[in-house]
């Protein structure tokens, strides 16, 4: 098996080469996913593993289940394609919809149930994929922005650990925000 003595930069020449390098990502539940190395390198975490030469072409990801991993790979593939010739590390991850042609695709991508959304956030954080982290967190923030604190607790199943007096105190001190 060839060891991955890869160059840091995915050069154009390599892209033109039909036998593009692939890596295998293994989810926590044992499923393996083979992806182009350049797609996998959308994740800074994976990128560092490959660059450090520790890959051996199969990278275990014990924090990510297969369901989530397949979605993450889908995201990375789509964004890598859209980035075209540019390197993953310099693709701009703006969430400004007027400049990002993927906005519609992204919006559909995050139409998932709450648990999946949170798992995607954790995965994006663990795998260090800035664009995905920004997209998923912004989606949750947008869900929150119209809600009162009580509605937040209900939507996200958060226990209110304040006593009534404590909660009143917090509200009083920050009264201006509630007006």
């Amino acid at each position: 098996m060839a060891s991955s003595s890869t160059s840091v930069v995915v050069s154009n020449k390599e892209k033109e080469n039909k036998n593009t390098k692939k890596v295998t990502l293994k989810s926590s539940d044992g499923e393996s996913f083979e992806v182009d190395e350049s797609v996998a390198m959308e994740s800074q975490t994976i990128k560092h593993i490959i660059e450090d030469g520790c890959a051996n072409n199969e990278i275990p990801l014990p924090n990510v289940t297969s369901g989530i991993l397949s979605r993450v790979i889908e995201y990375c593939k789509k964004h890598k394609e859209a980035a075209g010739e540019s390197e993953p590390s310099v693709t701009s991850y703006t969430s400004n919809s007027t400049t990002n042609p993927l906005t519609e695709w992204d919006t559909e991508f995050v139409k998932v149930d709450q648990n999946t959304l949170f798992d995607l956030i954790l995965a994006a954080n663990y795998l260090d994929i800035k664009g995905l982290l920004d997209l998923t967190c912004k989606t949750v923030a947008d869900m929150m922005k119209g809600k009162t604190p009580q509605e937040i607790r209900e939507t996200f199943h958060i226990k209110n650990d304040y006593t009534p007096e404590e909660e009143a105190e917090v509200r009083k001190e920050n009264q201006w925000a509630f007006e």
Partner: protein
Amino acid sequence: MLLEILYRLPCCRRAVQFKSVSKRWLSVISNPYFIRRFMDRHRHYVCKFTHVFQNTIELNVNTYIRLVSYDHNDNPSFKFDPRIGLEFLDFLPVLSLHYPVCIQASFNDLLLVCTQVPKASFFEYYICNPFTKHWLKLPPIPTDGTRTRVMIGFLCDPCICDSDSDNDREQGCITNAHYRFMVVRILCPEENTTQFQTQLQVQIFSSETNEWRNSVVSSPRKLNLNPFMPIACYAGVIACNGMLHWVCVKDKEIKGFVVFDPFNDSEQCHYIHPPIDLSLRHYVSLGVFRRRLRIFQLIYAGSFSLWELEDYSNAGTWCMKQKVYFSNMDFGDFLQRAKNIHGLDYSDERTKMMLYRDMTFLAFHPNDGDSVFLHCGNSVQLCNLRTGVLKRVYYYSSPVRSKFQLVQPSWPTPVPPLPLNAPSISN
């Protein structure tokens, strides 16, 4: 992860409401690191701002204020009935006691308010954020009974907190969570305010020592430091970049500007040259735009000019940002209205000159570097110096002796400042 989500909320009000969701949310949102990330994310925030007009410059039981708040489109709204006025500050305990009171300075969204317990021999100062209604009282300062005239400087200097292991993006990011501050009282030299003074007596309160102390300030160049002289008094004492600035006058001419940096040296002043093309015999106004010092000069029947200080070194490097000639200015419907209201039958040019005579500088628009607010008789006008267009914003008719511009940053400035050693967040 909570932090990653919450700092992406569009406005601070919701984020602060969410402090009441649970204790963990409280600890994340109150943490200075969160505030920093929030402010960094919102660094292109268009600030809301408010003009505060006060009918006095000294302690007065009849002080009242009028507020005009602006939305994103510069449309004004008047929040309070001007006859009642001071409810804006009614969270301050002294207000209910009807002591004489006076707003003496402002910085971003903070006000410095002075009061005096009747028949007592000391002044009390409050620093307050009228939006969050948080306030802090400074230790009292004794009055000496004789010299009541002062000029006040209120300096806030943000503390750069590098105790977190941040990535490059966060370094140098603005936060108002931690700051040190000073209140500087410049005492009027003597009865005669037009005297050349190479020394000034000041009283300085520092948040670092939590006490007042006296100091004598001098200048190595033997400049006239007197800020009470006519041209200097008109421009006032301006806080910018943690330093105070005022005009240095000699023989009724502007010589330059005094820079007083008490955080670094409370006994000596620096000096900067005036811009080359400044008219030295006309009045100027000083102000701040995005943490840079600016000069505005209005020359009757001549021009409006605007300079910005780019660099303090080499006795100051100024850049002229805008200049518009009087004859090129577009008064819009203001001209016609003025004619209608006053029944004037003059030519446009003559009417313009009459209106112009009443114009004084109010403030630099906090979001638009080309625009300034001007008083003109009974109205406030917004003047775009690039296009020369004057737009009436509103009319008012109360007497105004002092004015302040409150600018609300993307996160409200905490009063008192947050301690530097806050516990770290667990995500």
